[in-house]
């Protein structure tokens, strides 16, 4: 009987349950997808970086478990928020609280089980889609992916079931221990007291100070080494908490004292926000840090990708080298755009490779040199080598030329001789053709076609040892692919989960806001004004962590640019931040819509 009543409660609030279910389904799907890839030994081992990739994947998995934990906690809070009143009422009416405890535990478990199972199935579909993306965008071989991967199913099911089991125990305890009256009234009790200004000020100053220390530590990672990360982590976590707790309350208080407060229901909106921010301190701090982590992960992951041309160009000034190119290779080279080609004649005699000195004076060879000082320190630069410079076997130019010759000439000496001497030499004349491209990224496809043909003609092992920059390019690309994948994947997963954590938290409070909005409607507030108030309130709650997170990443990236791990960190940052904000805005919009649906009263006179 009780079961029936409980179920009717679920039916009455099916929309809220829909939000809850889709949230957990999404979390389980993301988790499954990640595990299906990370646990897949064949796939992880197949990436060029091997063991390194494993470490990255394990780190990613740990982070994902942590955020899932936080997520399930908020999802469960949302569930309890919905059920507290109903079940509290049952207890008031005489239902045994032990029985209700069992009921809520059961409900929690069922909700968890059903949505996790659906989530795993959704995760399989997602894995199929994502593997397609991986294959085309990151050139990771497809053969290792399996949408249905047993170990991943088990890990996902076990983790989620354990989490929901814990949640159901906690929920049962709450019902067994809390008096019914308190359960009924829990949401209406708001002991709002004005915080002391002096305390707020101290916290605000302390918060800013800690953040500055953290940012400074990250900036100085060169000298602080690993300490920078520890210092940064602690100061930024604590600093963020203080800032959320104080700085914004002070800011809102300032607005409250201004004339702005007297317009429309601004006084209500601002007061609500002020009140909420204090109530939300913990979640807002967590969200802002996760936001930073997620955005940072994407930026760094994608940032490595943008390092590839930089690294490849540092290897050699020429993308392709071909000695006596076959017709196929020549045809493919012809298709490369934006290129400049240079040809040198070559004769081999004994253990020495001979070139015409005149040719190298007329068409000096280029080489990649590292800039040691100045603004561009750490970057590579293309330089032109004089013949004298080139003759020195220790010079970069000499070594890079050797790497461009046929691999079987590695151990040979190189000599430059006059045309007369060159003509006297026995043996056939080889043509060494070197191809430079202006933009290796845009020519990647056509260059790779040449490379494939070379592999066909000389065997992949041989080509792999060549000094052509395209060889380096493809190698680094596949090595960074797993980094990029991890960054993008974790970034989006984190964002999705943290935004829905925030959504759940905000929506859990909607029920208790109902009476306020009803009252405002009665005293004559236009519906548009009510809607705007909601948009503003939720905007405040969404924007605050986003702003803090953006600032965190902005400074955090210093770690990568100071250490030259990333060359174009801030370019990538801009794009990933925009993509990120768009996704985040979608969550914001959905939250606003659901909230408005819940709290804005439907007056019959306005139908």
């Amino acid at each position: 009987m009780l079961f029936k009543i409980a179920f009717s409660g679920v039916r009455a609030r099916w929309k809220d349950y829909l939000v809850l279910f889709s949230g957990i389904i999404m979390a389980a799907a993301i988790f499954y997808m990640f595990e299906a890839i990370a646990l897949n030994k064949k796939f992880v081992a197949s990436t060029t970086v091997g063991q390194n990739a494993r470490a990255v994947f394990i780190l990613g998995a740990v982070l994902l478990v942590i955020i899932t934990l936080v997520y399930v906690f908020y999802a469960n809070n949302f569930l309890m928020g919905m059920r507290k009143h109903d079940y509290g009422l049952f207890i008031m009416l005489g239902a045994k609280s032990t029985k209700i405890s069992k009921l809520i535990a059961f409900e929690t478990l069922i909700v968890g089980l059903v949505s996790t199972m659906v989530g795993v199935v959704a995760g399989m579909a997602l894995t199929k889609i994502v593997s397609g993306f991986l294959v085309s965008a990151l050139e990771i071989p497809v053969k290792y992916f399996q949408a249905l991967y047993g170990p991943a199913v088990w890990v996902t099911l076990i983790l989620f079931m354990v989490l929901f089991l814990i949640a159901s125990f906690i929920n049962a305890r709450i019902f067994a221990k809390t008096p019914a009256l308190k359960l009924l009234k829990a949401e209406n009790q708001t002991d709002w007291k004005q915080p002391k200004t002096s305390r707020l000020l101290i916290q605000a100053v302390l918060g800013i100070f800690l953040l500055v220390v953290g940012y400074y530590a990250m900036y100085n990672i060169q000298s602080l080494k690993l300490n920078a990360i520890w210092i940064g982590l602690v100061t930024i976590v604590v600093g963020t908490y203080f800032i959320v707790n104080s700085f914004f309350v002070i800011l809102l208080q300032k607005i409250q004292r201004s004339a702005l407060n007297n317009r429309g229901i601004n006084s209500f909106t601002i007061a609500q926000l002020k009140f909420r921010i204090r109530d939300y301190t913990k979640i807002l701090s967590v969200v802002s840090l996760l936001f930073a982590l997620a955005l940072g992960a994407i930026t760094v992951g994608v940032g490595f990708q943008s390092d590839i041309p930089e690294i490849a160009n540092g290897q050699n000034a020429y993308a392709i080298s071909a000695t006596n190119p076959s017709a196929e290779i020549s045809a493919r080279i012809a298709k490369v755009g934006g290129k400049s080609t240079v040809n040198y004649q070559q004769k081999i005699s004994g253990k020495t490779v001979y070139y015409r000195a005149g040719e190298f004076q007329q068409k000096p060879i280029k080489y990649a040199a590292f800039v040691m000082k100045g603004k561009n320190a750490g970057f590579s630069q293309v330089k032109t080598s004089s013949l004298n410079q080139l003759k020195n076997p220790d010079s970069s130019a000499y070594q890079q030329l050797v790497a461009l010759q046929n691999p079987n000439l590695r151990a040979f000496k190189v000599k430059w001789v006059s045309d007369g001497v060159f003509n006297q030499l026995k043996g056939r004349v080889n043509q060494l053709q070197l191809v430079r491209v202006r933009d290796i990224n845009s020519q990647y496809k056509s260059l790779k076609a040449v490379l494939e043909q070379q592999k066909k003609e000389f065997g992949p092992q041989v080509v792999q040892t060549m000094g052509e920059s395209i060889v380096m390019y493809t190698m680094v690309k596949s090595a960074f692919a797993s980094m990029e994948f991890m960054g993008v994947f974790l970034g989006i997963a984190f964002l999705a989960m943290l935004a829905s954590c925030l959504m759940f938290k905000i929506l859990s409070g909607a029920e208790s806001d109902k009476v306020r909005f009803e009252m405002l409607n009665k005293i004559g507030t236009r519906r548009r004004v009510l809607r705007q108030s909601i948009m503003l309130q939720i905007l405040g709650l969404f924007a605050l962590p986003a702003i803090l997170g953006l600032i965190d990443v902005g400074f955090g990236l210093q770690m990568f640019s100071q250490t030259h791990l990333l060359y174009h960190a801030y370019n990538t940052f801009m794009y990933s931040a925009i993509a990120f904000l768009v996704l985040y805005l979608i969550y914001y919009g959905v939250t606003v819509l659901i909230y408005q649906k819940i709290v804005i009263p439907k007056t019959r006179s306005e139908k």
Partner: protein
Amino acid sequence: MTTEIVNTQNLHKIYDQNSETPYEALKGISFTVNKGEFVGIMGASGSGKTTLLNILATLDKPTSGSVQIGGDDITQLTPNEMSDFRSKKLGFIFQDFNLLETLTVFENIALPLSLQNVKGSVSKEKVQRAASRLGIDQLLTKYPTQLSGGQKQRVAAARALVSDPSIIFGDEPTGALDSTNARELLDTLQQINQAGVSILLVTHDPFSASFCKRILFIKDGRIGEEIQIGNRNRTEFYQEILEKLGTFEQ
């Protein structure tokens, strides 16, 4: 010459009209309230008091009939006009106070003025005037959770009064108060009324009703009877209300 503040003609309200079980809550109600009157509406539970008040307050629409308040036919207003009408012309006092606990007393009272974007200095003066009329000038910087029930209801009354409404509607405003606090609030309402503000009070408490000058009894969606205080004092009026309730409710 007396001017009419409220004039309803043949008001009908049918709930769930298109369902299988339509329910006619109001069956042709006509009455007027003149400027400066203090009118009570009494009736048993379910007789249609709240329904009537919601219609008068533009929170609900009548199925048929007309309602004029201050000369305007409020059934013809657009939703936005209805909102503006409520904020400018009406004051509300509800049973459960309905204060916003995140706002100070001052901000709570000022809310209807803010809705009309009244200038800060003007609004401050008006709030102060309303607060001193209800004897809560000392509480302006407090938060609702720091107040007693009686104080909260005074704040609500000040909020209803602050925008100089044509009429104040009260739905059981004393319902959640103890007798001392209820009496104090009713005394204050009476003073406000004597200063010229029209009040329409819905109640089923005879003591509250005895503060009115005229009482309309509703039964099953119709106005059954009407009594006036005339030249009698409140105790005599109270007696009559009790008697009427006795016969009326049979």
